[in-house]
């Protein structure tokens, strides 16, 4: 039977020739160890829920755990599981509050920011005293570059939750709108005063602190914050990515290789490894670039393009196609506006010799009074 090997151009690579393994002992796939206590708890919950799929507290517990795994592992399959667990309530006109909060998180992860914000607005309207809703809203607003609204959404947290969470939230937003130094000092002080905060809270505070220090150009302090965050031993893809970026900027690609080689399943981490290998002229580079290309193509086949920032970086630095990278960075900029989104666009515009394309970002940086050493260097490089 001659089956066509095409779903469009450039996709052929995804289909190798299927084969019949030669031995029964041949290992085809490695799963997350089923003996892992977290996995065992999940499968127990799943079995119980299968008996009574409309049990809301049970469904919420399972969905929360899946969602958390989806975040920490950067594995969207868990997001899909969480969504399916909540399906009995997902499309109701007015879902239970906790379903709305989770739905907002999951929608945010699919970059459906409007949907997520409308869910959170519903929660806050029904229960103004809901710290998770205010916090999630603040995070999304900050990703979208609305720092003032993000800061306002953090304020209710001062009354509703721990001082460290509230301070991290406020400082993070304020540090992006002209108060970088003050915010950094404030968060640093609050963190030092609260050594008993939960590991999750510390992880978040330290990651934010490290990124603030990077933007201020305090490299030694930044590294100390990153290292302390890593020493908490909480698996966190975002932290690994941010630290790898720091090391890449510092010209320490060997350390990136050592940091990341344990887990290359998240696209963002493989991207950073490939960038490090490019500096090292490693023999692995070609196969990793090929692999990333296949991953972006696979996402596109689903009709999704969620990691536009990563794809723009990949296209710019690893494929060496500045014009195409600039287009991707511009599409990304229309969706989200974090300092790194600005940086990718400026880098692509610079490489593509397209100064006008950088103008919207330059205007935006001026209006937000964002302080970022790397961005300042980039802006200075424009003619």
């Amino acid at each position: 039977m001659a089956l066509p090997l095409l779903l469009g151009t450039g996709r052929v690579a995804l289909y190798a020739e299927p084969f019949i393994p030669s031995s029964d002992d041949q290992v085809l796939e490695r799963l997350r160890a089923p003996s892992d206590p977290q996995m065992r708890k999940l499968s127990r919950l799943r079995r119980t829920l299968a008996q009574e799929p409309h049990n809301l507290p049970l469904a919420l517990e399972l969905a929360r755990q899946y969602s958390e795994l989806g975040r920490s592992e950067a594995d969207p399959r868990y997001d899909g599981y969480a969504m399916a667990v909540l399906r009995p309530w997902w499309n109701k006109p007015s879902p239970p509050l906790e379903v709305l909060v989770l739905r907002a998180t999951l929608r945010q992860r699919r970059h459906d920011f409007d949907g997520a914000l409308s869910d959170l607005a519903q929660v806050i309207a029904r229960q103004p005293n809901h710290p998770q809703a205010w916090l999630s809203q603040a995070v999304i607003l900050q990703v979208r570059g609305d720092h003032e609204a993000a800061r306002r959404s953090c304020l209710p947290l001062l009354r509703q939750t721990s001082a460290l969470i509230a301070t991290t939230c406020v400082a993070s937003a304020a540090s992006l709108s002209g108060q970088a130094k003050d915010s950094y000092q404030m968060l640093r002080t609050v963190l030092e005063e609260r050594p008993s905060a939960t590991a999750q809270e510390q992880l978040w505070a330290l990651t934010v602190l490290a990124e603030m220090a990077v933007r201020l150009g305090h490299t030694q302090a930044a590294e100390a914050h990153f290292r302390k965050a890593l020493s908490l031993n909480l698996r966190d893809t975002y932290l690994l990515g941010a630290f790898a970026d720091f090391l890449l900027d510092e010209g320490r690609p060997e350390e990136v290789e050592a940091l990341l080689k344990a887990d290359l399943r998240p696209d963002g981490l493989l991207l950073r490894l490939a960038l490090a290998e490019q500096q090292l002229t490693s023999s692995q580079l070609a196969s990793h670039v090929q692999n990333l290309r296949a991953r972006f193509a696979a996402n596109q086949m689903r009709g999704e393009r969620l990691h536009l920032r990563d794809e723009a970086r990949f296209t710019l630095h690893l494929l060496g196609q500045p014009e195409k990278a600039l287009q991707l960075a511009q599409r990304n900029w229309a969706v989200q506006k974090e300092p790194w989104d600005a940086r990718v666009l400026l880098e692509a515009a610079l490489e593509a010799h397209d100064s006008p394309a950088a103008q919207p970002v330059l205007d935006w940086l001026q209006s937000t009074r964002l302080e970022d050493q790397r961005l300042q260097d980039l802006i200075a490089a424009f003619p």
Partner: protein
Amino acid sequence: MKRGIAYLIPCLLLCAPAAVLAHKPSDSYLRLVIQDQRIHGQWDIALRDLDYALGLDKNNDGLITWGELRTRHEAIAAYALGHLQFSAGEVFCASRPGEQLVDYHSDGAYGVLRFSVNCPAVSEPIELRYGLFFEFDSLHRGLLSLEYQGRIQTAVLSPEQPTFRVAPPSALSPWREFLQFGREGVWHIWIGYDHILFLLSLLLPAVLCWKRGRWQAVTTFRPAFWEVVKIVTAFTLAHSLTLSLAVLGMVSSPSRWVESAIAASVLVAALHNLYPFIHHRLWLVAFAFGLVHGLGFATILLDLGLPGASLWLPLAGFNLGVEFGQLAIVSAFLPLAFMARYTWLYQRLIMKGGSVLIALVASIWLLERSLELELESWFG
């Protein structure tokens, strides 16, 4: 110890792809080919997802081996095909699992399930309903690629959009099909030298008239123009008539006979320019031979393969394409011939010499086609 060795060997083979596996949302790759009343399918499903649904890791060691997969083939096939329904009209089609293989995609190993589907009434539009893994993964997508009569249709199947209706080729876009056959018509006029030469033979004397035993130039454009209109219209009507009748199956003739008759028509038309025996109503000749040429076009059109559902659109498209090609030739020829009609070049070289040449070529075709002699290979 024995176990350790069993791990070690596959690791040598597999650690390379395993090291760079992606985290991505769950997709399955469903490829279908519809052919001769049957659907052939190849369905790549991630082992990780199959394990989540059916529990493939029998010994609970976190590794899925080929043995664990192979022994569950029947259960996997029943589960997967139970979540993919085909129907034609109101009737469900029966699926039959075939062999199971393995393949790698960017996020790991996939079970490759081959299967076939038999639809009792393939003439009805086929619809498929996809429901794999939706019950426990809302982000799962079925990436469908379907080949039907040389055309690829694709779709992303999701919980929101789980069905796909296979567009029958003729209904894909009637307008596009019409255009496609129209292009074929133009193309076959251009590469069908026998038709061009026949047309030219009829057109050559159009700017002349036979007086006192020889060709003389016409004085005004109008009679020449109307002569051409009459000839072309008659030729067109005749070949459209036989083309339609043949394609609709109402007449049929052996193609060797038709090809020979076409060659003969070219020969007669060329000889007629040298020794005219019909001085008026040349359009009658055009009509008579047009009937034969229509049968020739029919052979081409039938060779192109017509969709069974509707014949009229491709037929009309092809016919109009042929007309368009002819008109292009006529409108290029007529003004030039009219301008050159008094010259020696036209009256002697083109009219006489050209006709002799056409007659020669047509004779070779006639001989070759009727006797199946490969004379051309002697000359070429």
